[in-house]
């Protein structure tokens, strides 16, 4: 990994990330977190910062196919990885079916947890297109919604999986 030391002695590293299909080369410090590269270097501010200690899931991104907390992963550890953020979920201006179902089911209240929720759900449906309610709840257990709107979120994921959803 290429490192650059400036005249104040601060070391920076050159890393390469593939984010939503585009490969970026960025300069980071050893202690730069992945979430900061996404938000501050690449202006992908859909990835949220909540607890910043890996508990709340608002910073969730998909890294090499798996949802992870970008707030506790060093940018250096993500060097060479493929990352999907919420900005990469819609394709060619067309919303993903999960984004549509979150709207249909009013699964968004304040919206702060929504990017992370959708990415956790996206990773689940990619791996398991027809999950049980238990599997849905497990998949989003690391994403906290403090509006406590879980019922509609679970419905939205069911709808995206093509499952019948109770209407009220």
């Amino acid at each position, binding site marked *: 990994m290429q490192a650059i030391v400036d005249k104040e002695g601060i070391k920076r*590293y050159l890393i390469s990330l593939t984010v939503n299909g585009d490969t970026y080369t960025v300069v980071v410090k050893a*202690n730069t977190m992945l979430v900061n590269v996404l938000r501050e270097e690449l202006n992908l501010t859909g990835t949220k910062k909540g607890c910043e200690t890996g508990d709340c899931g608002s910073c969730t991104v998909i890294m090499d196919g798996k949802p992870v907390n970008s707030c506790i992963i060093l940018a250096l550890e993500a060097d060479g990885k493929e990352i999907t953020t919420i900005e990469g979920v819609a394709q060619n201006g067309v919303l993903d079916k999960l984004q549509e179902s979150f709207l249909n089911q009013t699964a968004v209240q304040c919206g702060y947890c929504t990017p992370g929720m959708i990415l956790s759900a996206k990773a689940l449906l990619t791996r398991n297109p027809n999950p049980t309610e238990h599997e849905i709840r*497990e998949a989003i257990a690391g994403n906290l919604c403090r509006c406590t709107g879980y019922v509609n979120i679970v419905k939205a994921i069911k709808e995206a999986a093509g499952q019948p959803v109770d209407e009220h």
Partner: protein
Amino acid sequence: MYTPDFDYYAPQTVQEVCSLLTQFGSKAKILSGGTDLMVKLKHGTIDYEVLISLKELNELKGITYQEGKGVVVGARTTHNDLVNSDILNEKYLSISEAAHHMAGNQIRNIGTIGGNIVNAVPSADLPPIFIALGAIVTILGPEGERTVPLEDFFTGPGKTVLAQNEIVTYITIPDQPTTGSNYIKFGLRRSGALAVVGVASSVTMEGNIIKDARIALGAVAPVPMRAKNAEAALIGKEYTDELLEQAGVAASQECSPISDIRGSAEYRRDMVRVFTKRSLKASITKGHSGEHLETEHGK
């Protein structure tokens, strides 16, 4: 929220990790998954000048079965790798279930078994079931490799037998084809909760007689502990529910829980009695299994 500055190394070999640890001494720390390390660095409860990343060491990742040796799990294997392992789902469902009930999905994708063990948190979920199955830790240092039974690995909360320049490379679970095992995690919530009490057991039966039994308890002592008095109460005896109750009572007497926000010492002791009995019964009747239960107010 930022961590203090540190220097970063990502060596290509495990030997290099040991050399760096020797070179930097107590200023350096190994970075495996970082799910615990990053949080502590951010909170300022620890500080290191050098982090040594294991990211290039793919040989420490993965689960294999080696004839005559057993199941070998690399230290960089993630919790979800345990959950999704065909080898573990076939041979030790108790281990994959224990991993399944840890933290949340995002953490299970990053956190590693090496980290879970080396952190030596008294309530960690993997040590009890590994200890109940007689797991052996392989450690590499500058002078070469050594092995330690996991039950002798922990010396106190956050403390282990690992020297400053040593690294855990593998955990081996020896073959035990006629043994059943179980882990019960008892937490305050269904997800993202530490164990209030964790009870693991393994039992080998010969007809109706308990030929061998191992019980390991989490979150009720400074280290994950064997309940040896309870085991002694079982071995060589005929299996009855009363016998399992006696073992539960013995286990509750020999553990040394503390009172904290998750439960009082008294409560934990009584739950050890209940779950030891249940875990033993599952080990005898269900092969390999795992359960996660939550307290009433967690429902």
